[in-house]
């Protein structure tokens, strides 16, 4: 998947893409069978090599009815620090051939320093990808 930015846009905004977040695939399938609805949500996500884990704004967890599976200790430089709820989620990448992540951990923590983004894709997801950033041409490529 190629993300075509101009060098200036890439510099100013960072590498980002639209993603779809929902409860895990298994929950959605089993939930529908018993009449439960699990909304999904399209959000803009920043690919953040400085984030160990994938972070979402807490409102997404509520809206998408994500299941909490624990807590994680987070230390955010210049922002929030402490324990935050961890949820199971599915993340897909509409309009691309990147494989969906049917069950992945996300941590709900207010994203204060990046107000244009509702999700930071961290190194837990990046470890599944080859990620190429060309600041000269503005081209970003992700290969799963």
């Amino acid at each position, binding site marked *: 998947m190629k993300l075509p930015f101009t060098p200036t846009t890439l510099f100013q905004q960072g590498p980002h893409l639209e993603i779809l977040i929902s409860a895990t695939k298994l929950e959605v399938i089993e939930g529908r069978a018993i009449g439960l609805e699990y909304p999904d949500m399209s959000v803009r996500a920043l690919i953040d090599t*400085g984030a160990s884990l994938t972070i979402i704004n807490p409102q997404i967890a509520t809206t998408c009815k994500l299941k909490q599976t624990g807590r994680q*200790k987070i230390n955010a430089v210049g922002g929030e620090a402490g324990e935050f709820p961890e949820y199971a989620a599915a993340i897909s990448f509409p309009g691309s051939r990147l494989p969906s992540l049917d069950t992945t951990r996300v*941590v709900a923590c207010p994203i204060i320093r990046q107000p244009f983004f509702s999700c930071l894709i961290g190194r837990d997801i990046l470890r599944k990808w080859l990620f190429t950033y060309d600041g000269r041409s503005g081209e970003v490529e992700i290969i799963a």
Partner: protein
Amino acid sequence: MATEEKALQKELTVFEQHKREWLRNHPGDFVVIADETVAGFYPDYESAFKAGLGKFGIQASFLVKQLWAEEPVYLIH
């Protein structure tokens, strides 16, 4: 937020009570706990979560927690 803070408190207590013992045989694995029932140990989060859904059902709360000797603090830059 208060609900989230209290969520899974019983499971976390069970985890803390057994952590040292489990670490001997399952370092790095993910344990699944609902109430005081332990569903098992799994090599990754995904398989642990699916096992929790299978055992406890989609409407149950359960903890999925990795066994570390030292609890990591994750950095967000």
